[in-house]
């Protein structure tokens, strides 16, 4: 607005001359180019994912560090899904065994374990899992 009040006639003429043909700001080019890169990139990734082998969920539960929490033993677990499909309501059961005899059981359910992804959780035991044989198993899942 203040530009118009400038007594600089030269500038006025310059602006009028350009008025009908709008000049595209450099920033617009940058933003649009970024948008184009993002669209093409995201589309490429999704299509790559789409045509990747669509296998059944392959769930595997692994035990992480064991810590004593309020008098109980917490086993941190990580569930990996190596398959090409996501799994919902993944039930993981941990069993403490000695000489084939079950000492204690604990289980949890993960809402989702996406394809090629992990989910983390924990199981509590009253006995020290380090003193026994700990079996971790992904028992069941649902299709989302």
């Amino acid at each position: 607005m203040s530009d118009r009040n400038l007594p600089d006639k030269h500038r006025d003429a310059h602006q009028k001359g350009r008025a009908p043909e709008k000049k595209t700001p450099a920033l617009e080019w940058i933003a649009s180019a970024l948008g184009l890169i993002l669209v093409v990139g995201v589309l490429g990734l999704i299509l790559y994912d789409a045509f990747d082998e669509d296998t059944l969920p392959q769930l595997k539960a692994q035990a992480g560090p064991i810590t004593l929490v309020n008098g109980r033993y917490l086993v941190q677990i990580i569930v990996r899904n190596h398959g090409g499909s996501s799994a919902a309501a993944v039930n993981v059961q941990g069993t403490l065994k000695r000489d084939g005899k079950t000492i204690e059981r604990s289980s949890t359910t993960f809402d989702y374990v996406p394809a090629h992804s992990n989910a983390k959780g924990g199981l509590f035991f009253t006995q020290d899992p380090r003193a026994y044989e700990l079996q971790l198993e992904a028992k069941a899942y649902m299709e989302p």
Partner: protein
Amino acid sequence: MLRRHGIEENRQYALGLARAFGGAIIFAFPLLMTMEMWWLGFYMDRLRLAIFLLTALPLLVGLSYYAGFEDTFRWRDDLMDALSAYAVGFIAVVAVLTLMSIITLDQTWREIVGKITLLVVPASMGATLARSQLGGAKSAESEQRERQASYAGELFLMMAGALFVAFNVAPTEEMILIAYMMTEWHTLALAVASLVMLHAFVYTVGFGGQEDYPGSFFSVLLRFTIVGYAIALLVSLYVLWTFGRTDAIGIIEIAKITIVLGFPGALGAALARLVL
């Protein structure tokens, strides 16, 4: 590299981008904070997700034509606006999802890309609409185009409105649950109610801003209300299909869910004119 006389244009454009960023967050935050959206992002069918992304682009170009966040004069500018709206929506979604720890670095790229892609669509629509909602200065040209929108243009705006509003509730479990709870009579009544509501909006609000509704009662009913409702239902069906809500469900149940989602869809179609 910016030449001196380009500084003002760039400043204006940066302001437009900031406004678009605000619009993206305002329009998309209900979906950004809906857990079904994050889950759908990683488990929905990848091809349907790709198709959805490709559908969104022409929609953004069209919206930019009618209500862009920048004065648009030429077709190329509308395409550029659509792309920059996508970029703004993308950045807004990534920023909010990161802030809320919905995407984290220990997730795989498939999960992260899925969550982002689905949410960028409403965010970039919000970025495009920001001009007409947040910035007082809507370009005279857009205003005029909106008023003089052709019949096809009116239908396009209804479709965009239906998609936006239906999309906001479509991912939730409640759509399915409501359809299960309703009897066939409830469904029929809801369809009629949606039609009446849509017609009331079309009739009283009037198309083309505050102009008189074009044509007689029956003409408006047939050309706008019935067609508008059909568009709302088709958009609803498309969104349900995209989210995999129609898989392994009987045709009667699909019809019921479509009519349930058609209710917000019709609302969106009716309100498209007010929002834009």
